[in-house]
């Protein structure tokens, strides 16, 4: 049971009350290290991209793992990636989401961790494990941990889907539509989300200035005559909150003139929020990977969207000059079976892949591996090479390494512990 503390005077949202004080930066402090997690929701098929196997028949009679030949497997630097099966019509060859383009452009910044044992085939548990590092309930997402010290910022943690449990460390802002933020950044505009019509206001400028000045003066008068400490404190908080509206306009100033739809728009909002000092972490969400039927076509379609999103995100990051400050982690609930079902789909499989790129990540690397039948292989925790006497990489190892790498505070690390062998995954 949490009880309110006496003379509680924390600025910002109440959820920051549960933070140790040492984690609460001075009010107004802005983050300068950012994390984006991208959920490929439903369980992606690593053999359809960075852990390709080819069409050789399995010895157990279950057919091939993939519907493309092993000889068609491509490479970009040290990364290998799948060919599109012949039954799949790939996206246009000039699309940034086409695998040839995507890997050619980004392999030098991509880290691929294959053979990750998700230890579950449940969507709920898999998603929780992948993004919190613990399969049990009650552990916050890594995005929440990164944002927690900035809980006083109005949108420290942006989440547009996926596992975003915060353990009340920080309130996730789930509204990430630019139109919503525009409505709040320009509260006097009738058509805030239209740059062209934004000037059409409810009140003319002088009238609105008079209203705002009257509001400010009224709040000051109320404060001067208030004798109840609690109400006085509330008035002071209200005055403080009203003073921060310039930040939202800064967010809009950092957005492209025309914000993209769907997941690309999510990327633009997240990067603009980082550049404005309003956010520290963001969840992005690409659906469509739960391919129990028509696996090849639907995985290819969803991967195209995902790769276009990542490419667009990286472009935004570079435009904002944040490439040395934003780290991106991309993962899924689990993997898919190394064989097809009768509907041409693939069901749930515990072996999966995690990718990372961005600030601090050494790209053009592949860590971990799977067998010819797409079973996870153990690795030597020191050398990270496969080793039959080693350990399986699990999401907890990834989070242990990620926390150490990105600097989750020791207090939060103790509060939500992850005990796992330290692996030098992120260097």
């Amino acid at each position, binding site marked *: *049971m*949490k*009880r*309110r503390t*006496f*003379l*509680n005077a*924390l*600025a*910002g*949202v*109440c*959820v920051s009350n549960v933070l140790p004080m040492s984690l609460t930066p001075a009010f107004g402090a802005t983050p300068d290290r950012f994390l984006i997690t991208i959920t490929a929701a439903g369980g992606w098929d690593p053999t359809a991209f960075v852990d390709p196997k080819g069409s050789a028949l399995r010895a157990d009679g279950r057919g091939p793992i993939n519907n493309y030949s092993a000889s068609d497997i491509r490479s970009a630097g040290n990364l290998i990636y799948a060919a599109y099966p012949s039954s799949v019509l790939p996206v246009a060859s000039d699309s940034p989401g086409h695998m040839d383009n995507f890997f050619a452009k980004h392999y030098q910044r991509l880290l691929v961790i294959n053979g990750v044992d998700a230890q579950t085939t449940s969507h709920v548990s898999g998603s929780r494990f992948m993004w919190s590092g613990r399969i049990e309930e009650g552990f916050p997402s890594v995005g929440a941990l990164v944002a927690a010290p900035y809980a*006083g910022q*109005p949108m420290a943690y942006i989440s547009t889907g996926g596992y*975003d*449990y*915060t353990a*009340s460390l920080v*309130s*996730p*802002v*789930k*509204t990430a539509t630019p139109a*919503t933020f525009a*409505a*709040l*950044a320009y*509260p*006097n505009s*009738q058509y805030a989300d239209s740059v062209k019509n934004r000037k*059409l206001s*409810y*009140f*003319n400028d*002088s*009238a*609105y200035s*008079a*209203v705002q000045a*009257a*509001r400010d003066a*009224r709040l000051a*008068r*109320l404060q001067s005559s*208030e*004798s*109840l*400490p*609690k*109400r006085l404190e*509330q008035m002071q*908080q*209200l005055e403080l*909150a*009203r003073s*921060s*509206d310039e930040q*939202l306009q800064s967010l809009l100033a950092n957005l492209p003139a025309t914000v993209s739809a769907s997941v690309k728009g999510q990327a633009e909002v997240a990067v603009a929020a980082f550049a404005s000092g309003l956010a520290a972490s963001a969840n992005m969400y690409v659906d469509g990977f739960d391919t129990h039927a028509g696996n090849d076509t639907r995985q290819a379609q969803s991967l195209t969207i995902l790769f276009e999103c990542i490419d667009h995100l990286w472009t935004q990051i570079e435009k904002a000059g944040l490439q040395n400050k934003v780290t991106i982690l991309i993962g899924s609930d689990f993997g898919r079976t190394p064989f097809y079902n009768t509907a041409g789909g693939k069901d749930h499989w515990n072996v999966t892949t995690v990718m990372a790129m961005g600030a601090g990540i050494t790209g053009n690397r592949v860590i971990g591996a799977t067998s010819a039948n797409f079973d996870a292989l153990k690795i030597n925790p020191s050398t990270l090479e496969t080793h039959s006497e080693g350990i399986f990489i699990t999401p907890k190892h990834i989070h242990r390494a990620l926390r150490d790498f990105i600097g989750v505070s020791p207090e939060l690390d103790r509060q939500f512990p992850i*005990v796992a062998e330290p692996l030098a995954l992120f260097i």
Partner: protein
Amino acid sequence: MKPRVYQLAACLLALFCLAGMFSSAQAATGAAVPSFVYPILHIPRIDVEGYGALDVNMVLENQTTLSLALSSAQPANSAVAPGATYDLHTGILDIPQLRMGANLYAVQLKSTGNNKFQVTQLTPIAVTGQASYTQMCAGCHGIDGLGGPVKVTLKNCVWCKDLTSLTNYISINMPLGNPSLCVNMCASEVATYISTAFNGGSNFPIASTLEAIEVMPAAETLRKASMQLVSRLPTQAEIDLANSGGDEGLRSAVAAMMEEPAFYERLDEIFNDMLLTDHYLYSNTPDGAINLMGAFPSARWYDPGATSGLRDATYTANRITTNDSVAREPLELINHIVKNNLPATEMLTADYFMLNGYSAKSYGITDVAFNNEWDAKEFRPARLAGIPHAGILSSLMFLNRYPSTVTNRNRARARVVYDLFLDVDILGLDGARPNGSAVDIISKAPTMENPDCVKCHSLLDPVASSFQEWNVRGKYAPPTKWYQDMFQAGFGNQSVPVNLSKTPLQWLASQVAADPRFDNAMIRIIYKGLTGEEPLESPGASATTAETEAYMAESSMLDAAKAQYRAENRNLKTLIREIILSPHWRADGLKDTGFALVHADTGAARILTPEMMHRKLNALFGFEWRGPLDAYSTNKNLAISARLLEPKLYFEQIYGGIDSFNVSERPTDPNGLMANVQERMANEMACYAVPNDFLAGATSRRLFPYVETSTTLLDAQGQAAVMANLQHLHHYLLGEDLALDSAELAYTYQLFATVLQDGQSRLASKVETAALPARCVRTKDMLTGVALNTAGLTTDPNYVVRSWMAVVAYLLADYRFVYE
């Protein structure tokens, strides 16, 4: 700071540091032992020759010389026994027993003239039980009994009201993990010590603390209560009742409000903020509740099948309604109990659960007679055959919201039972849990053998084992055997009786319901619901004087409310009513700013939740915040158009809404985004409401009963009308009653005049046109969308409409509007 005190008696640190310790509701019943609470020495009764029985206060003037001055003397309560003697001839004031902190002292003072006295003797008095308390109890509860590191106070605690109960409780339960250490005589002596040292003082600090509160008038209290409970303004009849009937009139008016359907919406919110079972509402988790009903084959009775081609709008509506009917089952049980004035304990002991026509079909129950099986609001009690219902505890929603695993063995559920229904934070009982290096790998069953583990697990595991008949996902599935390496089903040190061993959860529910801490848990839930914040926690060993006095005063108030609630069959309406009537909830200011620290948290003002703001706007304007009124006929039926209820496109989540899972705590202060939501709300609602009100007939105007769109400030009549309307708006929107010549009204008048004058200049110079802003115009009927017979309201040739919009926007973003 007080060196002389240490020099005189080292053990008297408590004398000046532990001020405020002697106040308790129990003390108010007549305990007579004099007490010292810095800086006041209080003698409830002293008989002085020639003066009779006096109740005397003295104030410490000099901490170095320990000199005090008489500050007040009034006739004493004759039922109180004298606690001191005064010899007029020698000038010696003798106090055989003076309480200071947890200690007793024999004190003698000598008159130095001019009603001043100096301490001449100060001798500690040994108290039976003190040594045992210090050795076995103080580590957790603090040497002063105020809570210590675990913040579980013994001041006015639930068992401290009578010595026998306290003795028995100590004998059976304390110290945690090893109650055999203190039984019989030891328990009796410790109980006596706790009773006398922590619960036997005077109540004067509470009285003075409460008297410092300026209580809001009855009508204002009623408005606030009405908005809180039923999201509407009080009627004139209710106002008259409150004004003429004093507190009893107010009680009657508030009680009547709690019979309205709107009250039960609010009650849902209050309890869901703690239970969080609304996580399964369709809007939070699509099919969230139905997905939990794998054991019920007709759960999706409404679904004709994906390939049937029959999944139409009715299917969608039934799907959502059924899901939400199942999800709301535990909250509907609470509603049923409160509606029917049943004791709150029935939320645990009910041998039934609640269904409406939709959820009955999902559960496959056909023997419940509904007046209208398609009325989603008609919930009735029902039973599942072969299921030993235990109120909320056996609810499918509760059991899944707090699930278990094969290794957790229901301990998470047990923790929640302690938290929600016993007001005990079991994880806080003994500080930090062992870290990785301290895990006991030697004991076969550490939770039963290692004393460090047993402290908590002896409480937690019997409750956890009592859930054994329900599996990890809430299905009733009695196990063939239960784990033997954990404490077996029970509660405290009691095991489930053998004849009830097949229904341990029902037995547990009855035990929890009978536990006096259950009432504390209800107080916590209701108080948080009505104020947005939890009751003050026990102050603990490091508390300041102000913190201690604040806790004492608030707990005294809550105890009084609890006593009334218990006297009225544990009716939650009583609890709500009494808290609303309390000076803490009605606090409108402080008479004495010297109490500012003590009353730092006093008062019920809170920022409105998005749901409350949504309802308030509707109550005041007659429409919800859903965009322009010309499109309202369509928008009013769309869930996605409600600006304060929709989380993704609009502002519900930004404005502090919860989804009962990822976001489960409501903010108590606004952030920058919330301030912007307020500003947009004020601007938009002013734009919609002002033209709408001017379109209304004279008798149905809410906002502008005194002016027309042609009323300007050109003449005295117009000026007077505007002023009268401003007065009305301040009252109607903010609840402020301002005199026509008040400065506050003059400021608002000035705003109106400024905007009007400037606007008319802009019209004259053609900088601006007569057209109203596009989203403010009215050409259609708000409810039907049909074109208005009249010309509607699209222009503002005098700039009056826009000037009133400015005034209304000014008022809607005011502190007194966005807080309630």
